């Protein structure tokens, strides 16, 4: 297939991938960044994503899956538009991560690994995110939120709901 005409990625991402495979001494070094960037755009590693990445790198789909399953950020089913990742590792645990996670669960009505019915939020308890001195910390997609208390939770959710509404308003299909 011709990748230029058949790509499932946006023209911008497709162009980025064209450059990425040229960048390294070995093409395959592009694999992990490519999977993560593809996931950022598509939402998860769908069969179509895996097929195209395999094609671009020149390895089998099985090989791509074998690598992808190793990395905890890579996922094979969709999550919410805003994926809330509460660090519950030691430094965050000592400063109230469990209470924070509980509050998110109550406010969203979902358990960890759940997705809200409207698809706006999903929740995860994650391992150390490297914000130990600003604990407890949470990542919403790639945003870091530091030094939180359960009282911050409703405001955080409202802010991201606002962003979601805004994104919907500007989407081409809206």
């Amino acid at each position: 297939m011709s990748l230029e005409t058949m790509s499932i990625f946006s023209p911008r991402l497709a162009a980025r991938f064209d450059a990425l495979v040229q960048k390294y001494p070995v093409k395959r070094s592009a694999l992990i960044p490519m999977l993560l960037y593809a996931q950022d755009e598509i939402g998860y590693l769908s069969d179509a994503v895996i097929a195209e990445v395999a094609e671009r790198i020149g390895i089998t789909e099985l090989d791509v899956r074998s690598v992808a399953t190793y990395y905890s950020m890579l996922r094979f089913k969709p999550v919410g538009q805003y994926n809330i990742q509460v660090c519950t590792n030691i430094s965050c645990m000592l400063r109230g991560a469990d209470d924070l996670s509980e509050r998110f669960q109550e406010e969203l009505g979902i358990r960890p690994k759940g997705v809200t019915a409207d698809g706006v939020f999903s929740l995860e308890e994650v391992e150390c995110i490297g914000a130990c001195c600003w604990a407890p910390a949470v990542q919403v997609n790639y945003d870091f939120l530091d030094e939180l208390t359960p009282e911050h939770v409703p405001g955080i959710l409202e802010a991201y709901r606002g962003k979601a509404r805004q994104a919907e308003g500007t989407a081409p299909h809206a």
Partner: protein
Amino acid sequence: MPRLVSHPDEVKIVSQRFGQGAAKIDRYLELGGYASAKKCLEQGPDWIINEMKASNLRGRGGAGFPAGMKWSFVPKKSDKPKYVLVNGDESEPGTCKDHLIFLHDPHAIIEGTIIAGLAIGAKLGFIYLRGEYRYLLEIMEKAVADAYARGFLGKNIFGSDTEFQIITQTGAGAYEVGEESALMESLEGKRGVPRIKPPFPAVVGLYGGPTIINNAETIATVPHVIAMGGAAFAEVGTPRNGGTRLFGISGHVERPGVYELPMGYNLKKMIYEVAGGVRGGRKLKAVVPGGSSTPVLLPEEIDIGMDFDQVGKAGSMLGSGGVVVLDDQTCMVEFALRTISFYQHESCGWCTPCREGTDWLKKSLTRFHAGFGAAKDIDNIQYLAENMLGRTFCPLGDAAAMPILAFVKKFRKEFEEHLNGKPCPFAKHVEVTVV
């Protein structure tokens, strides 16, 4: 934005540009940036390695291997290209120092990478950041692009005949990739499973070429070693432990944060003076001195200097410099369980002792903490952990076993208090059904 802290006892070398806007290249230059790289370009590899050896700079990732010595292991002549690989996969629980370096001083990492490249004769360096650090990767990418635009990177760096290129790389979530050989595997587009050593990376590394791999803090320290002179840098620390360290103090302290203190700074003073003591005036129960993999210290064991040798003598490790402080309300069984849950999650599964050991330890501790433990479980936990030590290809097995052994040995009484279906004495979140 992570909060910056300050204390009069700090000696700001690596963190001197934090909060100064040095992520912008002009500001970095104003603050003396790239002078060390230019000097190294003039002086040549042997001079650089001698300065590095004189500095007593030891690896800041955790192992504490002397950086100058590591660099000197790279063969001068090689048929395959040589590489520099910067390890920014910062994932050891309790550790967030590299986070601040990437945020505030990305050019120091670039400059250190250039110097490392000059020292070993590499033309290409990689800066690998954990996948969660996307905003920091973007800061690094901008800094690299700016350095290219100024001619500090490229075919003719600083107008010389020397070539040096840098590629930034994202991970995608894996603690194990912080291990150097697993890091190379990941950069080659594979699962982050460690390689058998020898051969060591200095001889056969990335893409089969000689490679030096250093932690991001180590690399960011290099330009300062050159600027100060190796001997002057060594003077700041203790014997065989040159310079300062970015200590991340977290947990139950009044003022958590990343503080730059001389190597050998007293741990007790670090907790009670620098970090303001135990939160809420509570009593200290335990200290994890160097990230979650380092054996716990009791309050009576913390009157020690924080360098690799003194913490080693006290039966633990300086590790990544992540000091985690626990007050008297902490359940040590729950803490041990949380620690092993992490290693069980992160074990790559290649070696049996680590894969099975972490899983059984997690199962035992889960049951134990829920109040369903038996007296023999305590010895079994110890037996399991002892049988992992030294029996795995990479240090993850030890990293999981060592802290658990220390928890059981030093807090055996607390384990015993959990016995016979008693609810956890500290329980807040554990639902215990007494059968």
